[in-house]
């Protein structure tokens, strides 16, 4: 699992291995472990990517799936 931008600052880490069979299960693990991070991930502006593709619904995860949480983006 990967965190970017302010989410990584909030959690204090950017990358971790977390066993979970689905996105919902992963959120459940985070809710128990770090409620502030869980709350931040629920914000509508935070997008979720699984294996580098954006997803909007719950999806099943494999043991090698890469989940990334993306806060509002800004380049330039």
């Amino acid at each position, binding site marked *: 699992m990967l965190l970017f*931008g302010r989410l990584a600052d909030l959690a204090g880490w950017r990358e971790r291995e977390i066993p979970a069979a689905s996105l919902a299960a992963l959120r459940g693990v985070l809710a128990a472990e770090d409620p502030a991070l869980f709350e931040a991930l629920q914000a509508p502006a935070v997008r979720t990517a699984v294996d580098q593709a954006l997803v909007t619904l719950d999806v099943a995860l494999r043991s090698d799936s890469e989940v990334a949480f993306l806060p509002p*983006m800004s*380049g*330039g």
Partner: protein
Amino acid sequence: MIRLVQAPFDPGEALGEFCRDRTETGAVASFTGLARAENGRTDILELEAYPGFTEREIARHEAAARERFGLQDTLILHRTGPISPGEAIVFVAAAAPHRRAAFEACDFLMDYLKSRAPFWKKETGPDGARWIEPTERDRDDLARWETQ
């Protein structure tokens, strides 16, 4: 083409190279974005990307710009990592048979990069660090292209 670059680059050199050997291009427009010091409030800017994902997302919009404006070629250079005030953060160039398409394509690509491209930007200065997110103005700029 989109390239993420770690080290400072020379936008003039990038433009010179982009223009080279074009005998059917009537117009090349370019835009260079520089890091601002914000009157001493910013010492360093840090740009984070999601390698692989960031390039692919930008490439999708680059392809959309080429089709929409009938471009012959585009180049986007975008810094990642720590950037000092005065350094170029982003360089966009568009080549087209005529000028209007080239101007508009740079405008379009920059509006996209400002508020949608997968980068996360943090400014650090004497008052600490802050994450920069798209402003209302950035969103309004991008919305101009959706209604046309």
